[in-house]
Structure formats: structure tokens, C-alpha cells
């Protein structure tokens, strides 16, 4: 009996010391990283051949192949091996990497998660040191700026535009695309026929906020204060509500679709406001649909606005080969490489020089690039996932909800996050 207790005590001791070791390891590398980033990190470190890991969330086989090919080309050029990991749940897997002190050296990072990590100070703010740093579109740079510092290089650009089913359009006898809200409403009404709805938009803040900007409203002011509850925004949501109650616009869930692009592809809707990621879905899943893409109609006072979406190439301060990671990002953000990605899986380049090449190559999709100068980045606040999810849930019930209440609730929830810290 006595012996058993000794063994138990011993094992417990071993376990505790093992835990202490791992935590001191965490502490050690944790204290080392600020020093590294203080010395402007990556660029100062000596290059080595330590293998890199590149983690990304793939939209499909085309993107996976293109990223693998780019990594292989980089390895050939630099001699640094790159392990490419297509994550099934990117946010979760990157979070696990950070928790285990082994984040991937380069990874796709969305603006919302960027805010979280930038706040924690675990990202290498390498972006200004890139040779092409000034060449990125301003709306994209804004999405990856934390407290005035541009940290992470945007990898591509997406804007919301108006997709129109040309066959439905002709059948309804319509002419030029809608230039303002009144025309959008009238066209949607004419296109609503035979079980098909005129317009579909996604029932989330990422599918709806562009209407707030078009009406002269904002989501956040320049100091970061949340400004959702303004009269302009209430008016914009009221306009959308009138479209919903008239039946001229529907949300995808009302059409048995997972997202608006599916409803458009299945021709349950004649118009769709969605980003250029829809092109891939249309060509692979719905090749029979004939469509055109136009810039979004302007608001009542003629304000043009849309939302922009992007990911950046995140690099952690704790990379084992920071110089190598930076070299890889440099390689991935050349105009040539960005066009290679554009050709492979339809993304729009983040560099303005590559964007003009894109417009020449793909004139049918020029609307997306045309909209970039007046695009606003989708809202991103650290720790706001839950508040935004709640906002989305409320927006989905817009048809029966009160626009002012929806905006006020979201305002309160989001404002609590920006002022709380």
C-alpha cells in the first residue's frame, strides 16, 4: 500500500514537471518573439532552409492545385521546402497551431481573425517591407491595418456586384441594368414571375451592409466607433424590408439555397448581389446559366458603394524560418503570381498593376475591379464573431423584424466590444 502511494506520488511529480517544462518552453519562445519582431523581425533574421508550412482554406481542387504549384515553384527557386496543408476548418486549425506554439509559417487570414491576432500581437507586421507594399488597393490595405499599422499583405480582392441572368432579363423585356435603388426595385418586380424571385441577396451583414453605405451611412467611423444605428442605415434596411415584403427580393433560405449564388445558379432568382467567388460555382456547377455582371446600383443620393472581401498572407512572429516565410510571401505577391492564381481559380489580384492585366484578360468581369475604388471593407472587430452572428440572425428575420431595433441591438453589442478594452 505504501509502495503504491509512492508510485502515485512519483508519477504525479513527473507529470507536474512535464507540464512545467512545456509551459516554460512556451514562456521561453513567448519572450523571444517580441525581441524578434522588435528588430523588425523577418527581414533581420538570417535566411535558412528550415521547411515552411503553408496552411490555407481551399475553395476547391483548382485552388489547391494552384497553391501547391506556387509552393513547388518557390521551393525550386529558393531551396526551401514548403509543406502545403489544405485546412478543412482554417480558423480552428490555425488557432490550434497558435495554442500549441506551432502556428503555420504562412496562412490565409481573414480580416476578422486578423483583428484578434493583431490585438494579441502575434502577427509579424511584415507588410510595409514588401517591395509591392504601396501597390495594393486601399480598401484591401485598410482591412489589414491594426491601430494605423498595415501588417499583413492582402492576397486577393473580391467585391460584391450585380449578377443578372440574361435570359430572364430578355424575357422580361428589360434594357439597361439598374442604375439606382428605384430601378433595382422596379426591375426586381418585373423579373419576379413564375415562381422565380427577382433578386436574391445573402441574409448576412456581408451581403447587406453595402446598402447602408449606398444610402450615405457607415458601419464604423474613422475612429472605430460603431455607427450602425444611424437614420440612413435604418432607411436602407427599411428599403430592403419593402423589397422582401413585396416578394421581389428573397433570402436564399426562403429559396431552399445555402447561399444566394446557389439560388441564382438554380435560376430561382434572376438577379443576385454576390462577390466574384460566384464565377467558379457558375462555371463548375451551373454551366448552362447565361449571366452578366454589373456594378451595383447607386443609392438615392447617387452614392456608389460596395463591400470588399479579402484574405491576407498571415505570418506569425513565432515562425521558425521568418526570413523564409517572408521570401515566400514576396514570391506569392508578385503581379505574375497573382495573375497565375487569377487564371487558375478566378480570384482578382490584390495588386493594382495586376488588376489592370486582369481587366484586359477578363473584360466580362471588369465590374469587380471598377468598384474597388469605392469599396468598403466588410466589418471586422476583434472578438466580434458572436455579436456579428447575432446581427446576422436578426437580419435573416428582417421581413418580420423592425430595422431600427435590429440595428440598435447590433450597435449595442458591437460598441461593447470596441469600448470595453
Amino acid at each position, binding site marked *: 500500500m505504501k509502495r503504491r502511494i509512492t508510485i502515485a506520488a512519483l508519477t504525479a511529480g513527473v507529470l507536474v514537471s512535464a507540464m512545467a517544462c512545456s509551459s516554460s518552453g512556451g514562456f521561453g519562445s*513567448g519572450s523571444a518573439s517580441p525581441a524578434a519582431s522588435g528588430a523588425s523581425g523577418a527581414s533581420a533574421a538570417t535566411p535558412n532552409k528550415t521547411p515552411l508550412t503553408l496552411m490555407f482554406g481551399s475553395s476547391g481542387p483548382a485552388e489547391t492545385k494552384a497553391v501547391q504549384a506556387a509552393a513547388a515553384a518557390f521551393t525550386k527557386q529558393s531551396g526551401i521546402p514548403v509543406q502545403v496543408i489544405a485546412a478543412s476548418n482554417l480558423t480552428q486549425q490555425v488557432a490550434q497551431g*497558435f495554442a500549441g506554439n506551432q502556428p503555420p509559417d504562412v496562412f490565409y487570414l481573414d480580416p476578422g481573425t486578423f483583428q484578434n491576432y493583431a490585438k494579441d500581437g502575434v502577427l509579424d507586421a511584415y507588410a510595409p517591407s514588401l517591395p509591392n507594399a504601396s501597390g495594393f488597393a486601399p480598401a484591401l490595405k485598410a482591412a489589414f491595418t491594426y491601430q494605423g499599422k498595415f501588417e499583413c499583405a492582402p492576397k486577393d480582392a473580391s467585391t460584391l456586384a450585380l449578377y443578372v441572368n440574361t435570359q430572364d432579363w430578355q424575357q422580361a423585356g428589360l434594357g439597361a441594368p439598374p442604375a439606382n435603388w428605384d430601378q433595382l426595385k422596379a426591375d426586381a418586380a418585373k423579373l419576379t414571375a413564375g415562381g422565380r424571385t427577382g433578386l436574391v441577396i445573402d441574409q448576412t451583414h456581408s451581403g447587406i451592409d453595402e446598402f447602408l453605405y449606398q444610402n450615405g451611412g457607415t458601419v464604423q467611423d474613422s475612429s472605430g466607433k460603431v455607427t450602425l444605428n444611424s437614420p440612413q442605415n435604418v432607411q436602407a434596411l427599411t428599403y430592403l424590408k419593402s423589397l422582401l415584403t413585396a416578394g421581389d427580393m428573397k433570402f436564399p*433560405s426562403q429559396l431552399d439555397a445555402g447561399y444566394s449564388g446557389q439560388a441564382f445558379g438554380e435560376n430561382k432568382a434572376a438577379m443576385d448581389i454576390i462577390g466574384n467567388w460566384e464565377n467558379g460555382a457558375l462555371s463548375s456547377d451551373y454551366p448552362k446559366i447565361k449571366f452578366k455582371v454589373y456594378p451595383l446600383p447607386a443609392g438615392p443620393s447617387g452614392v456608389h458603394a460596395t463591400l470588399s472581401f479579402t484574405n491576407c498572407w498571415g505570418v506569425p512572429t513565432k515562425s521558425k524560418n521568418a526570413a523564409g516565410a517572408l521570401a515566400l510571401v514576396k514570391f506569392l505577391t508578385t503581379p505574375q503570381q497573382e495573375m497565375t492564381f487569377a487564371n487558375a481559380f478566378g480570384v482578382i489580384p490584390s495588386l493594382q498593376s495586376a488588376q489592370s492585366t486582369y481587366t484586359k484578360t477578363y473584360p466580362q468581369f471588369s465590374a469587380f475591379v471598377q468598384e474597388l475604388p469605392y469599396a468598403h471593407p466588410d466589418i471586422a472587430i476583434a472578438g466580434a464573431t*458572436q455579436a456579428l452572428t447575432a446581427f446576422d440572425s436578426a437580419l435573416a428575420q428582417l421581413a418580420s423584424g423592425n430595422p431600427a431595433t435590429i440595428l440598435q441591438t447590433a450597435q449595442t453589442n458591437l460598441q461593447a466590444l470596441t469600448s470595453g478594452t
Partner: protein
Amino acid sequence: MTAPAIVLVLVFLVAPIAMAAWVSLSDWTGIGSPFASGVHSVGTRNYQALLTQPGLPQQQLGESLRNNLYYVILVVPLQTALALGLALAVTRKRLTGRGFFRTAYYFPSITSSVAVSVIFLYIFASTGVVNGVLSYLGLHGPNWFSDPTGVLQMAYSGLGVTQAPAALANHGFLGLAWWDWLAGPSVAMVAVITLAIWTTSGTFMLIFLPAIYAIPAELEEAAIVDGASGWQRLWRVTLPMLRPTLFLVLTLGLIATWQVFDQIYLMSQGNPAGTTLTPAFLAYQESFGNQQWGQGAAIAFILFAIIAVLTIVQRLLLRDRSAAERSAT
């Protein structure tokens, strides 16, 4: 001798729980070890944000507890009753093809929950099979997975109560007005509940089967000789003999239903309007999605407390009754 067992228990049970308990009391941001020097204790702040401070975290916890409460109240009794019914049906001596039915009923349980969830998404689509059958009966089926209306709220409006009485609308608990607590499971949640009952009944049927076979045939025969009807034999002989198994099934059901996660993750992600949010899914979302690890861990411990208390209560209820009966005879 027991050293390996102790090590296993420490590494896989005690250490993770202790770690999670520490995270729930800390400001850990998910970066590096939770025991690193940069992580500070914040006392019970995470718990306060969830339990006492008005705000979104509290409201979402309230919503998730309401949703899960209705889920448990409906799923546990129904799945137990269905499992018992199926078990009794397939143990009938005159039934031909018993093996076939046993396999058929058990099939949903061994199918992966991913596959079952996806199939249910199609079945409950607004143009799916369920609505097809309903329209055949002349009913207009709802748009299941996008309808947040509570079924009890529908009943109230059927009785003419469409507006919340002021007493219920202005007072509440955990950031949720009493009117919302009394809304009942949403239409979307009803679809999830149906799925849960359908998939788990087979498993519990399997637990009932050996228990039914273990009832001595003499008891049944003696009851027949005494002139007991089939119904009386079920209530007076079979069910009392099954009480330990019933306790097991109810306990397992209670624990599993309070922890429902995968169906929610796959089918609704808490939508529509947060009416399928559950504490387990909320803990995941707070931690991995929102990087609020302390709050996520705190939700997990609140859930643990609820399950522990309910299991103890249930145990006391079932034990007390059997003890009382024994002393009476």
C-alpha cells in the same frame, strides 16, 4: 500495479479538466501554453459576463440553455419510450423476421451522424419529403430550417395571444424575457429533435433488449395465470423489472442531449435567430471562432454543473421511489 492507470487518469482526465478550469478563470488568448507567464487570472470575470452582467454573452447563454432545455424535455422521454416500444416489439415471440427488424431499427444509430444530418437537411427542405407529405394531406409545411417561430408561441397565437403580456415581456432571466423562455422549441429545432429521436432510439433499444430477455419467463406466466391483461403485465411486471435499465437509458440520454453538438454544427450552426444554439456549440464558437477561450471554457463548466445536478436529482428520484416501494411491501 496501479501506476499506469493512475498516469492515464492524470494525463487524460485530471490534467485536461484542471487546465480547462484554469482557462475559464484566465485571460488566455489561445496563444501558446495557458500556463505561460503572460496569462493572468481574471477571477470569476468570465463567469460573471455569462451569468450576471447583461449583454450579448449572457443573452446567448440564456438562449442556448432555453433551446437545449426544450431539446432535452422532448428528446429524452420520446426516445426512451420509442426505444422501449421497439424493444418490446422485436422481443415478441410470434414476430417473424425478428433479426431483420432489430437490424433495421439499429441502422440509424450506426450510420454516421454527418450522413444522417445531411439526409435530414434534404428531408426537411421546404420542397422536401416532409413538406411533400404534408401538402398531400392538404397542409402547408413550414420552411423548417429557416423558421425561428417557437411552437408554443404558435399555440399561444392559435389561442389568440399574439402579443407578449407585459409581465412576461419586461421580466426575464439570463438576458431573455420570460416570453422568450416560454416560446418553446423553434420549428427548426423540432426538425433537429426529430432527428435525435430517430437516430438514438436504436441504440437504447439495444440496451433494453437483454434486460427484457433477462426477465424470468415464470413471472410473465404467473401474471397470466393470475389473469393479468397484456397492458397490466407491461405496467406491473415488465416495467418494474426494467427499472435499472430505464435509469441507465434516462441517464445516458440526459447527458448526451445536454451535450448535443454535431447535429447543430452540421445542420444549423445555431440559426435561425439563435434558436438552435446549444451550450456545447456556443462554447466551441466562443473559443475557436471568437478566440474568447476563457468564456468558452466557462460555458463548458456551467454545462457540466447543469448535467451533474440533473443526474443527481434524477438518481435520487428513481432510487427513492424504489426504496419506498420496497419498504411498503
